[in-house]
């Protein structure tokens, strides 16, 4: 396998990891007003992701960095082309990150309410826009022969991309509800489990529709297999959620999100950003890539450090494996 293919896979893995991990963070954030009836309950929800959300977000920073290092043309075209959606995502992530840290710093209800709003909107906006962005990458956008984006904002708001946004929204909501059922006790756990079943049904319909539409735009044998796997995992998650097998339900939604993202990357390969105009504008793993020397160095770095990162992040999840409930929330 040549280095550009390896790096395409690595970028895909990083984004897949990001969506699996921050997917449930976003879900928990959006479900704050739905499942958290009072301040103590909302604190239970926030604290299920408290120790890990920041580490989860670094998957995005690493994915962006890997894209910059391995495929600078892809990074440059994507980030300058999808300007306003990315701006909104950045603003959302800023508000949300600060909110987690500052919400409990003052006792006033109005203070907490404001940060709760920041958490909900800060989770909702990226949950939708990441779907819109990735659907557009797959569908293709107008790029000129210099790989510059020549479309406008409206080009990004096509029906297929909007369905993509609705799909990631529904998937992350379900993933978050399943995660909460797994990580909480008592009443919240019950409500989260019941909500996961209802959300999951909607997510399954949207996801199947989106994946079928995706494969009709561009496809490969691998993409079809992955899409079928994603759909089966989601159905499995739904069945497990119904009988309250929370560990299996969470495994199911995690695998479903992972395979759905993998489907997009598999369908895209070997393109990384197809152009709807001039074929010369299309960016591929070849014409967007860095030199073999850079890729070789980066491969060594990735081979050495990725297992270490996975080990200590995995350990963190093990350290904080206990469920929490209202009784565990301290007064201050």
């Amino acid at each position, binding site marked *: 396998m040549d280095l550009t293919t390896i790096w395409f896979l690595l970028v895909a893995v990083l984004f897949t990891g990001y969506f699996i991990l921050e997917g449930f963070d976003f879900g928990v954030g959006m479900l704050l007003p739905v499942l958290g009836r009072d301040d103590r309950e909302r604190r239970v929800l926030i604290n299920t992701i408290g*120790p890990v959300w920041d*580490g989860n977000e670094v998957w995005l920073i690493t994915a962006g*960095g890997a894209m910059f290092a391995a495929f*600078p043309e892809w990074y*440059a075209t994507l980030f300058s082309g999808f300007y306003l959606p990315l701006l909104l995502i950045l603003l959302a992530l*800023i508000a949300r990150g600060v909110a987690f840290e500052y919400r409990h710093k003052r006792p006033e209800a109005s203070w907490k309410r404001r940060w709760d709003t920041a958490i909900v909107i800060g989770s909702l906006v990226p949950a939708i826009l990441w779907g819109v962005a990735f659907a557009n990458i797959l569908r293709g956008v107008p790029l000129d022969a210099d790989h510059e984006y020549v479309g406008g904002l409206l080009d990004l708001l096509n029906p297929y991309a909007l369905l993509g946004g609705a799909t990631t929204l529904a998937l992350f909501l379900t993933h978050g509800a399943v995660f909460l059922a797994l990580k909480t006790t008592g009443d919240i756990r019950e409500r989260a489990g019941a909500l996961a079943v209802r959300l999951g049904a909607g997510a399954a319909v949207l996801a199947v529709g989106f994946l079928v539409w995706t494969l009709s735009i561009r496809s490969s044998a691998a993409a079809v297999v992955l899409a079928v796997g994603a759909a089966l995992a989601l159905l499995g998650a739904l069945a497990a959620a119904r009988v309250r097998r929370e560990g299996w339900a969470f495994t199911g939604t995690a695998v479903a999100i992972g395979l759905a993202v993998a489907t997009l990357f598999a369908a895209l390969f070997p393109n990384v950003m197809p152009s709807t105009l001039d074929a010369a504008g299309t960016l591929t793993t070849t014409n967007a890539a860095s030199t073999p020397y850079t890729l070789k160095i980066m491969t060594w770095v990735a081979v050495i*450090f990725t297992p270490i990162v996975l080990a200590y992040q995995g350990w963190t999840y093990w350290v*904080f494996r206990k469920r929490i409930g209202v009784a*565990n929330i*301290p007064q201050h």
Partner: protein
Amino acid sequence: MDALDVARWQFGVTTVYHFLFVPLTIGLSVLVAILQTMWHRTGNERYLKLTKFYGKLFLINFAMGVVTGIVQEFQFGMNWSDYSRFVGDIFGAPLAIEALVAFFLESTFIGLWIFGWDRLPKRAHLASIWAAAIGTNLSAYFILAANSFMQNPVGFRINPDSGRAELTDFPAVLTNKVALITFPHTLAGSFLVAGSLVVAVGLYHVIRNRDSADTGAYRFATKFGSWVVLVASAAVLFTGDIQGKIMTDVQPMKMAAAEGLYTTESPASFSVLTIGSLDGSREVFALKIPYLLSYLGTGDPNGTVHGINDLQAQYATQYGAGSYTPIIPVTYWSFRFMIAFGMAAAAIALLVLWSQRKGRTPSSKWLLRAGLAMPVLPLLANSFGWIFTEMGRQPWIVFGEMLTRNGVSRSVSLAEVLTSFTAFTLIYATLAVIEVKLLLRYARAGVPDVSEEHPIDDTHDDAERPLAFAY
């Protein structure tokens, strides 16, 4: 006004803003780790109180550093996509390594430290803050290596077909002499900020809460912080001196611009303060120290320091017609402000130490005012240092290889970049007010009560037990 101007302003504002939080994160992470180690070693509760107290201030600041950092990585692609295309082969690698090697370490272990008081064995918990501190300090190295490539490009070639810069020697990029000296200079500057904060908050309580049971802890903190400031300022001066010589060598125009030195001089005198016309043709008032600039720039009191006019003429021959001169008042004054504000903090630290000699307790209102100003001074010094080093590189984005105006995104309109600049400025300004208020609130509250610690207890059912820390 065009998209280029706004993109430059946005980069300046978001970067200077981001770097208000970074020095504290870099320095305070280590200082908190040292305090916790002292508690671990001695078992003295005073150090635990200080660990938790300064740890809280650290975390309020840390959150801001994290969220404003994501903007930095995205901004290269969003506003500077032609720059990203040109240098991606070289510049992307340190950024990706920074995320993989440093940010994961920092963010994961910070989470373990914040929430791990009752979940981890004491040693593992202590190791967590050290791991986070190492991650933070390590991240500075990679991003400075990337920045140093822009100041002094090394280890690359220009591909004649694509016109892009390509990496040929990665170790050369990581051991760029500009990076090797900027890293310790930046760390020293960061410890100047962190030490100053420790002093300011400690001194406030020493003077205001004279009879508090925790006065001993605060006295210790002010002394500890003062020594950090003094050692850091010595390191700043030492590294800054070497940096000046390297700058004279690789970016002579920046050195000339720092001094407003228009004509080549040997020996050259250091301008403490010069007021004159912008083009240097007329001096109204000048205070100069003979030989000093020659010595700072070259190590030889009679060494030659090239002037702006000569360098401009040389660059015009080398790179084609155009201006290769930075905005002199900006570089001249930011260079002086950097030095003055940094040294002012060190001077106050000396006063604070003197005021506590032989067990005395200071009570001077003036000392308190000076002490409270302390954290602001090195923050300003850091900001002016960055403004100097980035503005002094202009008009280049990569010195000698790419002009700033050629690096901006072609596909981004003025309206788009204006929207983004306005949005960031507004959200950053709002958050700044909130952050400062929170810092003051928690600084005033003083050290926490640590009598009810939560020992690890895995033998009992802890379903009902409150968490040691919760958001």
